[in-house]
């Protein structure tokens, strides 16, 4: 049985926290270039240029792309044949976040209690999702999530009769209502199906799929394209200053659901949709 010491997990999480915050992923850089070509509006082109220049500065100087270096969302896929040694995996992940945010000059944005708000000063605890999978590897994805866009996210329990039209309307209305607040251009994570909390989880999960990879089901791949087209006809544009590029991508994830329900969650993310992965 493969053994992985928790110190390796801490080191990995620490590095991923920094990498995710400094380096804008290539799929997003590529989509920016394409968006700029498709954009007819001068101000919108300027904003895209500024955001690309910002990403260059961040990469070169190892500086966070955005001051909101997020709450650390960590997805862990644990092979069922792995033996974790040396301590608690939960503690190891949080230690990685603590060290990554301190040594990486990242902002500590977590309060210990949602009502009686005192900053934990080390950005812990992380939000951790475990998944047990076949094999003997551990795959860790760190996705720091900023709250300017998180606050614009929504969930709704639609009726089965609402169907695709109801889903589309809810997604579009959510983007419209968010307007300039989440720093467009945005990436729209959509979770459809499951239960109340599963839909929200799927929407989050959709955001860590690269935007140049479409849903494997052709029906949902088409729905992603259709929604993106429609969102980019709203005119909100980069920063909300007008333009075509309101969204860079719509990523949909689905799951079977109950005969009585059609849960839909929309998790909005800005262009700094950060995620960094590693396999142990």
């Amino acid at each position, binding site marked *: 049985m493969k053994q992985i010491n928790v110190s390796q997990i801490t080191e990995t999480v620490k590095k991923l926290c920094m990498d995710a915050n400094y380096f804008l992923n290539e799929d997003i850089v590529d989509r920016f270039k394409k968006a700029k070509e498709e954009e007819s509006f001068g101000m919108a082109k300027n904003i895209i240029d500024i955001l690309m220049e910002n990403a260059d500065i961040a990469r070169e*100087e190892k500086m*966070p792309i*955005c001051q909101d270096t997020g709450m650390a969302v960590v997805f862990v896929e644990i092979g069922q044949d792995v033996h974790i040694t040396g301590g608690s995996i939960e503690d190891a992940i949080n230690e990685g976040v603590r060290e990554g945010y301190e040594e990486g000059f990242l902002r500590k*944005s977590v309060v210990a209690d949602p009502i009686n708000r005192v900053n934990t000063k080390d950005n812990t605890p992380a939000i951790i999702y475990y998944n047990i999978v076949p094999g003997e590897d551990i795959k860790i994805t760190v996705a720091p999530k900023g709250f300017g866009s998180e606050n614009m996210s929504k969930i709704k329990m639609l009726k089965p009769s609402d169907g695709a039209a109801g889903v589309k309307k809810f997604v579009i209305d959510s983007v419209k209502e968010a307007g300039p607040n989440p720093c467009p251009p945005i990436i729209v994570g959509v979770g459809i199906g499951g239960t109340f909390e599963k839909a929200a989880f799927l929407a989050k999960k959709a955001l860590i799929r690269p935007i140049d990879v479409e849903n494997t089901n052709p029906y949902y791949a088409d729905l992603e394209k259709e929604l993106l087209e429609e969102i980019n006809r709203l005119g909100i544009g980069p920063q909300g*200053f007008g333009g*075509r590029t309101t969204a860079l991508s719509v990523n949909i994830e689905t799951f079977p659901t109950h005969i009585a329900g059609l849960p839909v969650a929309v998790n909005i993310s800005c262009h700094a949709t950060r995620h960094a992965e590693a396999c142990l």
Partner: protein
Amino acid sequence: MEKRITTPLNEEKVRNLKAGDNVLLSGYIYTARDAAHKRLVELLEQGGKLPFPIKDETIYYMGPTPAKIGHAIGSAGPTTSYRMDSYAPYLIRYGLRGMIGKGNRNSEVISAMKEYGAVYFGAIGGAGAKISKCIKSSEIICYEDLGAEAVRRLYVEDFPLVVIIDSNGGNYYEIGQREYLNSLNTD
């Protein structure tokens, strides 16, 4: 064409700004976001004195990342402004002239801006690394216990901003989006 403006502002400077104006702002500004606003307004409600003079000053809704050695500040882009909407009218009544952030404001804030003569600037959200280059100094002046949310006094040079809402209630989000949609119809 960019307008060069220096802080402190005054009513005349503010009344001359129109939604959509590109501004390069220089001078001292203060940072405050959610937790600091709560404390500032509680102080005013209890008849206390603010920890910094607010008349004609500008507040930047921002909490930076820590500065690396040799840098004045870390990444330093705007946070979403509507969370400060329940506090901003108080501060405007006490003389606040300028706010820098991103996103929509509510009607109470806009009414106070019109009545007392205040302006709402937008900085580019998501460009925190680039914006840090025009911040030349930063010192914490109060609420250090709040960490990233402490109130800081910044010295900025040619900080690029757009007037989003002017002191007549003109709104650049509405103007810009209308212009774009009209540009499609005339093609």
